[in-house]
């Protein structure tokens, strides 16, 4: 393992791309990464528009784009902006949030299996949401459906994430300890969920199950707006903190060599990852796999040693909107988007893996 790393390092040095300095921003020019990210972003936008154009009342792609740019017909305006936009935008925002969250978690923990799912966030949100659905029964369905459920899930996910973080805190947060604590807290939350499901009425179980698998049905502007701004603010925070500190993946020893601030940066980044995942889960339920697979796909497409943040977010969005599109347009029965992200994402990860191994 060491041998190959040394060889890789020498190779990288031989073809080291030139550094660029623009005022106070300096970065290394990586044409392939930039190209991949741009292509992914374009693809995500295309699928986003496609997702809006498909439905009971199909609208042509060009008219969708015109409407988004504010130059559409009044009829299209209503269907696009009021009916379909919230759902598509929710997919976009949640996808980006989960993708970036996964990329940060995997970089910090230096473990490709690490994802917000393992840090207890999704399990915590799930336990609270299932409690709300099964314990309050049909009576509170109206409240829990639109406002209460996402808010409760957000609190549950956030609370669990922070609990994991503080339990793992012991003169700094160590990636390995974080994962182990995360696994234990996740196990507790899942056990509670299972217990709630076992003792609940079967009709509530079905509703809870739909939420548990992740769904974009019936999103309203109110929910999307909150998720959108929260994600934007968090992404700005991530960008401000992450980009000056590239050597995230170099390990604790290097981190120690770089000084105390490195530990603080890592803590802030992790906190952002927890918040991003919680926002994503509150808006769409614990959509499986996006946070895990998006960074891995982005890494392989970009041929990058660690999960690239922006590309991971874009892959997440692409995966989520694309899956939602498939769920609505191609499948006979209305399945929640989470089923499709998993059915599409799982084999795709395996395909990437096998292809990389065959090369």
């Amino acid at each position, binding site marked *: 393992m060491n041998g190959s790393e040394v060889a890789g390092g020498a190779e990288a040095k031989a073809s080291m791309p030139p550094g660029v300095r623009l005022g106070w921003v300096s970065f290394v020019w990586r044409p392939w990464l930039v190209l991949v990210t741009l292509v992914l972003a374009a693809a995500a936008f295309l699928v986003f528009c496609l997702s809006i154009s498909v439905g009971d009342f199909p609208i042509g792609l060009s008219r969708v784009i015109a409407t988004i740019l504010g130059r559409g017909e009044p009829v299209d305006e209503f269907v696009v902006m009021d009916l379909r936009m919230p759902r598509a935008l929710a997919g976009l925002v949640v996808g980006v949030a989960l993708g970036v969250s996964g990329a940060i978690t995997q970089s910090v923990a*230096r473990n490709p299996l690490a994802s917000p799912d393992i840090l207890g966030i999704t399990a915590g949100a799930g336990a609270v949401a299932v409690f709300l659905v099964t314990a309050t029964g049909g009576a509170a369905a109206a409240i829990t459906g639109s406002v209460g459920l996402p808010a409760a899930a957000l609190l549950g996910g956030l609370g669990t994430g922070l609990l994991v973080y503080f339990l793992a805190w012991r003169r700094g947060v160590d990636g390995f300890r974080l994962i182990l604590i995360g696994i234990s807290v996740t196990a507790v939350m899942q056990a509670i969920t299972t217990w709630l499901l076992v003792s609940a009425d079967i009709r509530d179980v079905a509703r809870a199950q739909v939420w548990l698998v992740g769904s974009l049905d019936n999103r309203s502007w109110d929910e999307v707006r909150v998720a959108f701004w929260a994600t934007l603010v968090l992404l700005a925070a991530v960008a401000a903190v992450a980009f000056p500190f590239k050597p995230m993946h170099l390990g604790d020893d290097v981190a120690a060599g770089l000084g105390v601030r490195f530990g603080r940066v890592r803590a802030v980044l992790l906190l952002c990852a927890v918040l991003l995942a919680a926002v994503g889960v509150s808006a769409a339920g614990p959509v499986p796999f996006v946070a895990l697979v998006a960074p891995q796909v982005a890494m392989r497409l970009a041929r990058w040693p660690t999960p690239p943040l922006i590309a991971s977010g874009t892959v997440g969005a692409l995966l989520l909107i694309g899956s939602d599109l498939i769920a609505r347009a191609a499948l006979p*029965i209305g399945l*929640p988007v*989470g089923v499709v992200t998993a059915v599409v994402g799982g084999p795709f990860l395996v395909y990437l*893996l096998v292809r990389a*191994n*065959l090369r």
Partner: protein
Amino acid sequence: MINTAVDRSVPDGGKDTRRRRAVGLAVLTVALLVAATVSLAVGARALSPAEVWHGLFAEPEPDQKLTEIRLIVQTVRVPRTVLAIVAGLALGVGGALIQGYTRNPIADTGLLGVNAGASFAVVAVIAVFGFTDPFQYVWFAFVGAGLAGVVVFGLASIGRGAGNPLTLALAGQGVTVFLAAMTTAVALSDKESLNALRFWNAGSVAGVRFDVIWPVTGFIAVGLVLALITLPALNLLNLGDDVARALGVNIAASRTLGIVAVTLLAGAATAACGPIAFLGLMVAHVARYLTGPDYRWLVPYAGLLGAGVLLVCDIVGRVVVRPGELEAGVVVALLGAPFFAVLVWRGKFKSA
């Protein structure tokens, strides 16, 4: 980053250490026997030791009360006790092995996709054939678990990354998530399956008859034998592939053997009890803490700990929410996880 774990095993391997480890093994065995006795006595109807003895060994008598006790002990308490021991043993050994083979301290027996394969098989046969009796679908669960394990290992064995722990983990994740989604899709469109799935998912050792337990035990026994055979090679593999190869280990063969063992162990246990998450992961870490990184000791410890923990959790589940019962799988997570977190927090686990 993980395989530095072995470095203490050599200087530690003296006579004293060996004796200490052997004593520990004996203590665990005795504790397991005590727990088994308690398990026979505790339940909706508490029995005295004498009654348990009678229920186990006495000849049938006309006495109504004694016949009843006999019935409870022999058809309810004994099967679930035996199953808890066998399944716990399998999951403990499986957890220790999979962590060793993937060199990933967060690896679990569920990693190979066996849990997901079993769950999918269960909902599928319920949706297609309308099975309602667990004794009908336990075989499909085992086949599903085995197939998932084979597919994961097959995918991970293609090409250059063959046997690479990371490849295995990622392939396992891919297949698991895929199968879990298919399971959900079936469950959401078939209410009967959804109903069965939620109970199956809880993981329980109750209500399983011996005609299921014996065959499952057979598979687990084969898995245990394979596991024991592969232990010395596993120790060498944890020194790194290059070192192991230089020392004459056939890496591909021993990895295959190990994965087959894990699939048999986890698949059979899951088929009989449903997915019991976290048990294998937890006891593997506790065993490593007790024995150090020598797998020849670590694995037996993990097995006995797994059996003991599952048994105790089953007993606790019978007592805490009377008159109902809490499934053993739920108790495992609720009790085991905080315990595990405390150990982690106190720095008992090095990043292996």
